């Protein structure tokens, strides 16, 4: 599904990613952990196509295509979804409008007929139940005035509506209380399937109590320093990130 080879990227003139290698197969859930400043968010940004990040070397192949050659919106329509660490407020653009436009852009791209208003609403209301969201949130502007938890639920709502092939969740657990974390995790878990892959980018092990990864990678100084199974996350929880050479970010357990 996704093959990252020797990926290097910089923000401004600062090299952040210094040679990432990662293979993600359909059906797998990979957790990428690491201290602050290790390059986790830059990796999500490169995959989603954020323009302030410059790829300086290496390649990313997604379903046989050169992902880096695709425009941001083309990646989305090909089934790549980024759940933002800080979901953006867009006053004046309706949440329901964005959901419908996003879903239909994807359907059109795949040669499917656009959903009409009735079918669309039925679908979305169903997914909102899953996310334990109030329907009134549909008719508000995108994320405007949403609490931190509501924004994260809204991200996952978009994800369960769009049913991506590759979901990248950037620090989705940050700012969530335990109840919201359960709801969000439930939404994410509902999407797990043999055709779908996920990358969880997270500082803390907490999220992995609710979404069990198949593989855990530790990112530090722009490289994957270690890879392993779920047990690696527990090891990090016990020992912190100090061993990867970053004493100031040694804490792993959520405060």
């Amino acid at each position, binding site marked *: 599904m996704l093959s990252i080879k020797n990926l290097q990227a910089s923000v401004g003139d600062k090299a952040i990613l210094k040679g990432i290698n990662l293979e993600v197969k359909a059906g797998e859930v990979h957790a990428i952990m690491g201290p602050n400043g290790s390059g986790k968010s830059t990796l999500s940004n490169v995959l989603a196509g954020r323009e302030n990040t410059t790829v300086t070397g290496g390649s990313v192949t997604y379903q046989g295509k050169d992902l880096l050659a695709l425009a941001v919106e083309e990646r989305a329509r090909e089934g790549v979804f980024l759940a933002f660490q800080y979901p953006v407020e*867009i*006053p004046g653009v309706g949440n329901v409008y964005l959901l419908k436009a996003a879903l239909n852009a994807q359907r059109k791209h795949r040669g499917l007929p656009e959903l009409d208003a009735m079918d*669309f609403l039925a679908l979305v209301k169903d997914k909102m139940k899953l996310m334990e969201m109030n329907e009134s949130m549909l*008719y508000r502007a995108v994320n405007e005035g949403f609490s931190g938890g509501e924004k994260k639920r809204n991200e996952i709502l978009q994800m369960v509506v*769009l049913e991506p092939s590759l979901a990248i969740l950037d620090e989705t657990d940050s700012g969530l209380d335990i109840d919201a974390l359960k709801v969000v995790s439930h939404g994410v878990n509902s999407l797990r399937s043999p055709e779908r892959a996920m990358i969880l980018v997270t500082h803390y092990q907490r999220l992995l109590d609710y979404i069990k990864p198949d593989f855990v990678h530790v990112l530090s100084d722009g490289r994957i320093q270690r890879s392993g199974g779920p047990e690696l996350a527990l090891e990090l929880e016990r020992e912190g990130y100090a061993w990867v050479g970053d004493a100031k970010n040694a804490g792993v357990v959520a405060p």
Partner: protein
Amino acid sequence: MNPFLAQCRASFEAQATQEGTVEGSQRQAEWTRFEALGWPTTRLEDWKYTALSGLEKLSLHHSIEPREAVKGAPRALLEGIPAPRLVFVDGMFQPDQSMIEGLPKGVHLRFWSELDARERERFTQKMAPARALTAFGALNGALFTEGIWITVDAGCALETPLHLVKVSLTGQRMSHGALLLESEENSELTLREHCLGSTDQPAHSNWVTAIELAPQARLTLVKVQQEGLLSYHTAALHGLQRAGSQLQVFAFALSGALGRNDITLRLIEPHAECVLKGMYRVADRALQDFHTTIEHDSPHCTSDECFKGVLEGSGKAVFNGRVRVALDAQKTSSRQSNHNLLLSDKAEVNTKPQLEIFADDVKCSHGTTVGQLDEEQWFYLRTRGIAADLARTLLIQAFTLEIAEAIPHVDVRAEVRRLLGGTVEENGHV
């Protein structure tokens, strides 16, 4: 004398000759005032960024008939504008296109062409503050052919909006109209003003509006300029508010070669409230200019002003927002803001808040921003599969929509939202 002025002079002389002495002398007085003020040039502070060189060169015809039926009436343009409506084409009232049968008893319409001498004098007096705002106001007084006088009786609340439609149809024409709107105590009216054009030739529309609100009267005026690309639009609006009255003015300048709106609202008795919100959108070579003044002459009044601009290509805009709080206008609450979205390196906006506060116990704020589209919002929409162009359009619409959202009348709000291409729906439709 430039070609434009030469035509104005010809029209003035033709009308002055045709009329009896009273109006003749009024026209003469206004013409003399116009000449004394002089043709506005960029050497004048009020016209510093608004060059009228394009208008000067035009030789526009002025029809001095108050209600000549225009051939090829613009049915397509009028479609969808419901009754009650008043239609003016090239400055001439069109009874056949208008629909005024449904007006309630408490709303009275009179036309200048039907007024007797005494009424005309009164009308002229009441129009004077609006005509005094600019040289074009004086020109209006010298040249206007038809005026409309709307009175809303005390306690009369008209739920259905009244539509005033001004169409530039023929091209190479100028039109000078006058509107006087008097709302008596505790009355309520929404007036929706449509400025339309179906000609791709130059045209000039120069209307003057005077509003007087009696105590507790409520009036909403929603004006949208959607004229042709070569059209010139000058307009003056003067509002006079008595105790506890509420005036809400919404002005949207969406097209045209050049638009200049002078708006002055005076709060002359306590507890009067005004809302003045507007939006301008300019593309290549176009200019929109809003010169607004809010005068707090009395204590305990509030004003809420916000203008937003979207500038593309080599488009230009001017916003000059003056707020004056008189010495005894204590407990004034006044807000003003002007936000601009510059979408090209060539676009230009000149924005100037001008606060003159003489009272000492007041709450006044103002703020101005000039910026570009939010990259983070743009990126977010694209990560959801929205095409780059559409994402940009959505964000521009979202920026301007805030102005439309404040319109109190639900149908008018929905209509203006559609004109701006809004996507936030209230009632659950997708």
